């Protein structure tokens, strides 16, 4: 599954880093690389998009479309 499908409160582990230039690069710099643990802190109003992701010590707001390039596996709560 991808980061773009997660709901508020879910935790996951990154399997595959985003590959695209630009946005993908920025996401890798924010720490979206294999084995990183992340948690969805919030979903924006008006449709739950973008989402707010906690990764390492960083809160990153990202659109679900941009988050679909990141493969994750859900961690059981």
């Amino acid at each position, binding site marked *: 599954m991808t980061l773009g499908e997660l709901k508020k409160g879910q935790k996951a582990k990154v399997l595959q*880093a985003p590959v695209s230039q*630009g*946005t993908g*690069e*920025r*996401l*890798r*710099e*924010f*720490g979206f*690389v*294999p*084995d*990183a643990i992340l948690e969805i*802190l*919030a*979903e*924006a*109003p*008006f*449709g739950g*998009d*973008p989402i*707010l992701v906690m990764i*390492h*010590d*960083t*809160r*990153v*707001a*990202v*659109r679900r*479309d*941009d988050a679909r390039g990141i493969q994750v596996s859900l961690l059981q709560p």
Partner: protein
Amino acid sequence: MSETQASLPTLVLVGSPNCGKTALFNALTGLNHKVANYPGVTVDWAEALSRKQFGPAIKILDLPGTYSLNPQSDDELLTKQIIQREGHYPIQADVLVCVADVNHLSLHLRLVMEVIALGQPMVLAISMVDQAEKFGTMPDLKELEQALGIPVRAVSALKNRGLQELMDTIHEVHAKSIQPRTLSLPQEPVGRIHFLNNLLRKVQPNAMKRGSGWTDRIDRWLLHPWLGPVALMLVFLLIFQAIFSWASLPQDWIEGGMGNLGVWAGGFLPDGLLKSLIVDGLISGVGAVVVFLPQILILFFFLLILEDSGYMARAAFLLDRLMRGVGLNGRSVLPLVSGFACAIPSIMSTRIMGSRRERWVTILITPLMTCSARLPVYTLLISAFIPERHIFGFLNLQGFVLFALYVGGIASALMVAWVIQKFGWVGGASSFVMELPTYRWPTSLNVIRGLYDRGLAFLTRAGTFIMSVVIILWFLSTFPLPPDNATLPSIHYSFAGQMGQWLEPIFAPLGWNWKIVVALIPGFAAREVLVGALGMVYAIDHTIADEQQITALSSILSHELTLAAAVALLVWYVFAPQCFATFAVMQKETRSWRMTAAGFFYLLALAYMFAWMAHGLTEALA
């Protein structure tokens, strides 16, 4: 810059956004800085000498924050070019000082590792350690130094701690040209992240217990699906309220002061052209602009606090979905909100936007946000034509019209963005990735410095650009001089009067006579000048008080113009491409004449079209 300053060693501050770099800069330099701005390049950075108390003077530069040396936006590109000594900037960095927030070492040290790889003399400053000490999350500095191979110092700009030690270290690194011992640091991004995570587990084992839990607690309310937007609306309402009510008192002072200055100067200058230039031209023309200083400062006061505290990023998060609907993203929110004060700083603030497409569209629609220069024009026309009564029993009709003009500006800005997206006129993809920083108390020094910069920039503009335009306008409306037996006000015989009569047929469908057209011409230099220009055209007595002049003017206008023509004029002001400075900045920021021309002509077309429609509609209804 003097010879002695040019030979001083230069220290460049480098760090990620929100790392506390600017607070450190302010603490090291005080307020004696200047914003450097080199002609022809879209750059600026702050530059200052270190405070005397820290020992021998050293030049300090504060560059835009960046997450990596792999730039995604124009301001990040500048930082990369300067520290890698690319491009043609008059800067030679002797020592690089990387700044990393102690609470975000995992993110901020990634940039530090990239900088280490450059092999230049450098120091790492760990910032905001006052919080870390409180929460017991201080990293082991000795171990960090060991692992990274560079000197590491802990500082707190807020509490003024560790600054002397940092400066001493900088002097030592510079004197001995100490380079990083980059022996075994991984070079590719994923390796860096894993290296840092392992390192931080060792040197900062308590990091996860940090005190940012309260950021999550605040976000639970401020990012709540429906309380969040409500809070955002309240914040914007508060700002508007402040701009329009708090500013009126200082504005009265400025107007009074300028009036007195005119009377004082008029008192000893002999009658004639010089007096006319100084009193009617310079003092009243520049005064008409300076009067907006309080509104601009109040708006920026709030914007600086919202930015410094971390709330602006939340506003971008909350509004991204709406902005996406018209092909923009959450980052457009800050420039568009600044547009309510003035389009110029607002266009400059689009530099932080990553995507060129979204940046350009934001620049194109920014002039539609109702800037404070339109306000005096709106006020004059509304008081002359809109009856002071209530609709639906409680709404003040005049206030409602003013509100409608603001909403009209916002709505048309969003519609234009939507149309540009619909027809794909500006190419490029849309995305939104943004860090939401930990909430933080804004520091007073940051806010004061920010206000000082913006106020100074505004006054410089008033003192240079607007002053030269005012002189040209004075010339056009004074020469040729009226004949000796003239019966009409002198403007009738001037170049401006002739231009107005020549342009009259073009604007006749909007219901305007040549006098209105004459007054519109200076409005292209600065919108608010319309009020003064109308006063000149209708030869309002300058010696009476400002308020009486406005009252006299509005009673003349209500006879001169039909209601339909006045509504057309209001609508014209919502759209018209006025204030040449906006387009100068547009050209400078986009470096595209095509873009600037497109911006000018689409606004002109919309202004004429909607003013014509408003004229027809009002006539039909009335």
